[in-house]
């Protein structure tokens, strides 16, 4: 029975982690790299066979709970009083889809990293963290209950933190790692509170259970709780708390600030964690909880609006970024916004479909960008690129595939998934048309900034001095002279992902009868979907999307085609003259959002004093800084009360004594003489 082997899927990377952690330094780089890749790819093979077995079952039975201990037995992990949690996996279409993405795309990125990191001295440490990440990510997606999901959730956060800060000689990297970790904690509080409330409301943390002991999703679908009918207000609060958690992990407004900074890590990390897998965890969690989320219309509206706004905001910022990885980072935030838009309008399948195609093309874009950076010896600024089309042809052609996919060029993978989301938004009630319109505008911007990236990097004239390459001392530079194509270990994953970016969308296209949506249907609770087949509205919407994508690409081509020399639309002199209110500055300064937050924080800066010094140095970020200011100044105030004089301490104690005694006497006055 193949289901009894599911435990191996997370156990393999765990083994890889332990092996590399303890023996990594002794066995040499080759063994480390291949072992790390192999455990993940075997997980992929195993996931495929489980998928085959699952598809043989009738649709209603495509939901298995299997233990994650060897042998697949379900034994309780924690059992204290009425609090019982199993260490078990929920095998259903959703979790299996994510397994395939995590192990498949993740495996390819592992292979890529064996080439990319080849000359790093901490090779073993890198793959140790990488395997640990895969283990936690698989725990997250396979979790049978909320608590196990939370364990994975925190685990991937920790690995993300460790990997962003991987090159810790560079202070900014460690800074970025700190920021990512802390902003995520804000989300995690939401998650933790939501989880507690779920337990308090439903008396269980399992998603699904038996008829006698139903999981909370089953109860939510039937609108009942452990103590009678489920109140809509309760569902709303739980949904909002969970969404706060999702916002943190999946970089939605206003908690998106950490993701662009997280690009300080090595490029494979950006590809794996900050594009293909971890950042989509929020979408996965929301989709997993769709029976509960859809109970509250308020939550749905909030998710859709936040997603839509984030998509627009990030895309507009992406228009003016010059760092190739920053463009991709904002693009990721924007695409994640699309996914939440899909979930928010009730098309969870469409959201998950976009997760899938996004994993292909965004993973590819990051790996391609890594290849470019690698070729240029560590250069990340697009203003010093150009003319790379024929120098690194494989990278160029594969990235071009991803470019068309993300821009939504007809028949490419991104086209199908984005179209699905926009269509669902269009047909959804309430503000559906508005959401659709903003989505379309965002799509236009997406096509534009991706074309801009391609032109600046590949088609405009060369703007770097080949002799100086590698002088910037970045970590992509490995001392090879001149521009060079990457080794096969890096290009093969690129080619595979390119093929998927081109064709991967067909599984969800009307040509294949919306196979993807049918597959996922048992696992999520869609409330809106595009009408099936190619008729009427659907056709019109598709045509509009196609036109927008093509228009965006052509527009960018025409603009940049005329400026091959500089690759800049606005001459440097003109930029310098622009005031802070000009659209360009507005976008370049990230809508002044960080600045606003910083201002709030720094406005009080005079009072901060010494106590805040480490905050100031380490966490230079608006939201976090404001919070830190409050904590720090309170703390430094109260710190003064710790005078070091015994008699003052005794006085404090006496104040406490009097307060306790008087307070208790006062409080219990009415209990006396009943």
């Amino acid at each position: 029975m193949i289901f009894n082997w599911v435990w191996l899927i997370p156990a393999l990377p765990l083994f890889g982690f332990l092996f590399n952690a303890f023996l990594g330094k002794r066995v040499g780089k080759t063994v480390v790299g291949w072992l790390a890749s192999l455990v993940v790819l075997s997980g992929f093979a195993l996931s495929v066979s489980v998928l085959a077995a699952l598809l043989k079952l009738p649709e209603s039975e495509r939901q298995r709970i299997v233990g994650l201990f060897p042998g697949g037995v379900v034994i309780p992990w924690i059992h204290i009083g009425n609090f019982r949690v199993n260490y078990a996996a929920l095998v259903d279409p959703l979790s299996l889809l994510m397994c395939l993405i995590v192990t498949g795309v993740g495996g390819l990125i592992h292979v890529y990293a064996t080439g990319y990191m080849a000359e790093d001295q901490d090779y073993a440490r890198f793959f140790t963290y990488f395997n640990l990440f895969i283990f936690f990510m698989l725990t997250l997606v396979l979790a049978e209950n909320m608590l196990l999901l939370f364990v994975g959730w925190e685990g991937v956060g920790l690995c993300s933190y460790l990997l962003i800060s991987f090159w810790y000689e560079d202070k900014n990297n460690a800074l970025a790692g700190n920021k990512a970790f802390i902003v995520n904690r804000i989300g995690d509080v939401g998650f933790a509170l939501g989880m507690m409330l779920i337990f308090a409301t439903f008396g269980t943390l399992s998603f699904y259970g038996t008829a006698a002991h139903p999981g909370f999703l089953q109860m939510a679908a039937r609108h009942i709780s452990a103590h009678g009918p489920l109140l809509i207000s309760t569902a709303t609060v739980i949904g909002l708390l969970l969404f706060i958690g999702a916002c943190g992990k999946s970089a939605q407004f206003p908690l998106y600030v950490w993701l662009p900074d997280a690009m300080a890590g090595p490029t494979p990390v950006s590809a794996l964690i900050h594009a293909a897998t971890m950042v989509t965890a929020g979408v996965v969690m929301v989709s997993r909880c769709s029976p509960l989320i859809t109970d509250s219309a308020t939550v749905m509206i909030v998710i859709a609006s936040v997603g839509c706004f984030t998509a627009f905001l990030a895309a507009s910022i992406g228009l003016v970024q010059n760092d190739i990885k920053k463009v991709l980072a904002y693009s990721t935030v924007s695409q994640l916004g699309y996914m939440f838009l899909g979930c928010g309008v009730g098309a969870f399948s469409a959201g998950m479909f976009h997760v899938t195609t996004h994993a292909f093309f965004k993973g590819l874009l990051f790996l391609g960008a890594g290849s470019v950076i690698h070729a240029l010896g560590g250069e990340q600024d697009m203003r010093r690129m150009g003319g790379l089309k024929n120098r690194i042809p494989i990278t160029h052609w594969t990235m071009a595939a991803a470019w068309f996919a993300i821009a939504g060029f007809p028949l490419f993978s991104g086209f199908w998934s984005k179209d699905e989301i926009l269509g669902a938004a269009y047909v959804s009630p309430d503000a559906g048309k508005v959401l659709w319109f903003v989505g379309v505008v965002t799509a236009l911007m997406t096509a534009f900034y991706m074309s801009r990236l391609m032109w600046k990097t590949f088609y405009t004239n060369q703007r770097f001095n080949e002799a100086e390459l590698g002088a910037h001392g970045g970590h992509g530079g490995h001392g090879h002279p001149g521009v060079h194509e990457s080794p096969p270990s890096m290009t093969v994953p690129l080619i595979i992902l390119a093929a998927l970016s081109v064709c991967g969308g067909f599984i969800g296209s009307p040509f294949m009868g919306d196979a993807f949506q049918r597959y996922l249907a048992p696992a999520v609770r869609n409330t809106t979907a595009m009408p099936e087949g190619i008729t009427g509205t659907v056709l019109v919407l598709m045509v509009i999307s196609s036109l927008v994508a093509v228009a965006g690409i052509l527009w960018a081509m025409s603009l940049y085609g005329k400026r091959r020399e500089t690759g800049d639309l606005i001459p440097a002199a003109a930029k310098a003259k622009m005031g802070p209110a000009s659209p360009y500055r507005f976008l370049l300064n990230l809508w002044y959002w960080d600045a606003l937050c910083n201002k709030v924080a720094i406005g009080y800066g005079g009072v901060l004093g010494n106590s805040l010094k480490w905050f100031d140095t380490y966490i230079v970020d608006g939201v976090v800084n404001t919070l830190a200011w409050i904590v720090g100044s309170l703390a430094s105030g109260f710190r003064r009360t710790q005078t070091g004089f015994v008699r003052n301490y005794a006085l404090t104690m006496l104040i406490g004594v009097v307060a306790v005694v008087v307070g208790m006497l006062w409080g219990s006055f009415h209990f006396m003489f009943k």
Partner: protein
Amino acid sequence: MLAVPTEYYLALSAILFTIGVIGVLIKRNPIVIFMCIELMLNAVNLTFIAFGRHFAQINGQMYVIFVMAVAAAEVTVGLGIIVAVFRTKDTIDVDEVNLLKF
């Protein structure tokens, strides 16, 4: 039959206890502070004995025996510590014992 009610004894012990507490807070010599703590303990002893008589129980006096043993132990160690502090600092003023703070 009892001329002096228990409440009087309790009031006296509360007053003595409070004087001890105030003494702890305002004296600078740790030996005197410690004497004030002894005064607090003795005030509590009076409470115990008063309650013991009130309930006609031996318990109250039993507690006092234990409290005395505890006080003796505290005195032994406390004076030892004060002597040790004097050896390292050449003063026992508690306002000058102030290295550790904030």
